[in-house]
């Protein structure tokens, strides 16, 4: 099982906390140092019940220079990117954009993800787009299940979806097959995709 290979190195493994904070500021383009921890973000977050630190906790870790702890947390992977936190923040911090940057940084820094399943799922989706130009849900599910060595959970849900024709057996494809290769090359993704 291969889920933690670095994709693109932009920050050196020896980066200091300050380097990392500067990188987070530059890439997220949001001034998270304004956060005064009112916790509105956590109150609105639909997945905060499953998080360890909750969104403002991740910001606090970064403010305290504990970037590695933030990168190693489940929270950055559990974040769905629903933008609710960004909408409610009284300091106008785009927390969802910050979470994106934290995920990218965790991958780049080679941090072992606290939620390997979620990263594996994202990779299967991106690999599906690489292959077909569109997502093929059935294949994504099957490949994800194989990768996670979990073939039996949700078996009933899968069968129900198949019976209701919610899962197509064949993928919907784009006809320009070269274009995805071009995009992936431009993004410097390895030619065999994300960890197959």
């Amino acid at each position, binding site marked *: 099982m291969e889920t933690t290979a670095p994709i693109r190195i932009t920050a050196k493994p020896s980066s200091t906390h300050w380097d990392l904070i500067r990188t987070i500021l530059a890439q997220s383009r949001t001034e998270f140092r304004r956060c005064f921890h009112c916790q509105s973000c956590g109150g609105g977050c*639909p997945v905060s019940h499953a998080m360890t630190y909750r969104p403002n906790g991740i910001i606090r870790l970064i403010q305290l220079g504990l970037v590695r702890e933030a990168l190693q947390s489940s929270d950055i992977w559990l974040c769905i990117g629903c933008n609710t936190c960004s909408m409610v923040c009284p300091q106008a911090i785009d927390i969802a954009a910050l979470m994106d940057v934290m995920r990218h940084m965790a991958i780049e820094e080679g941090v072992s993800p606290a939620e390997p399943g979620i990263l594996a799922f994202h990779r299967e989706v991106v690999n599906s787009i690489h292959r077909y130009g569109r997502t093929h849900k059935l294949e994504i599910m099957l490949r994800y299940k194989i990768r996670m060595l979990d073939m039996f959970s949700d078996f009933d849900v899968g069968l129900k979806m198949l019976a209701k024709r919610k899962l197509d057996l064949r993928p919907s494809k784009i006809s320009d097959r070269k274009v995805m290769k071009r995009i992936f090359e431009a993004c410097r993704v390895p030619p065999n995709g994300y960890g197959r």
Partner: protein
Amino acid sequence: MAMGADAIELSYFPGCSLATSARENNRSLLKVCKKLGYRIVELEDWNCCGSSSAHSIQSDLAFHFACRNLALAPAGRPLLVACPSCMLRLQQAQLHLKEDPQACETYERMWGRPVDPNLDILHFFELLEGAFRAAGPELKTALKGLRFVPYYGCMLIRPPALRHAKDYHGLMEKILSACGAQPLVWSHPSRCCGTFLSVAKPAVVTPMVNQIIQGAIDVEADCIVTACAMCYLNLEIRCSLKHQLPIFHFSELLSIALGMGIKKSWLTRHLVDPVPLLKAKGFMH
């Protein structure tokens, strides 16, 4: 309602969900657009917008996926999007192009054409504004007696960068109540459904979905009406409550309201059978 030869042409980006798992959403939506006087031309060879996964692991990928679709859109024709998530991805890429000259250069190098700054990206909801204003007597009672809760999900929420983009909240209530249905005030109109976590973390998503559906049950709704095909799927597959509510795509109810009924081939794709409700309300015989 305009109809006939002077139809307005729109390019259309269906997105992966509407093209496959939510085909009933796509078909009802196309029917409604036609009835409202629009000629819909599917964007030729469109690709996935990148969904939640591309931007989660690499922003360049998300940008290029969205940009290729923008580059495929013929000039002078608005681009219609039905999926709120695709809408957000395409809008974000367009905003990035407007703000960053370097992004424009990359775009031009990749796609061999200049950025079209005037490309109008429209959500399906935008076609409906005004269309139902002059509702005739038939339309006014078309959905009479249906108590519903509108469920927008989270993707129609706008992140700070898109704060000036159009806000569509309130539209489902406005239009369906013009057709005689009764909108209910409830607790979860824009709560996130859990989206992709449904696959990797079903134990996290089930309580989220149950809360949403319980919220609708608490106000004694007959059904939930969704704006998003992804939300629709999660509400159907992840609810573990004993009592489940039928879920409708907004476009399906519009099809009933406009007198075109609801097709059997759409109904058979519902996991929670809506037929008893439709029959009880007299929308189906």
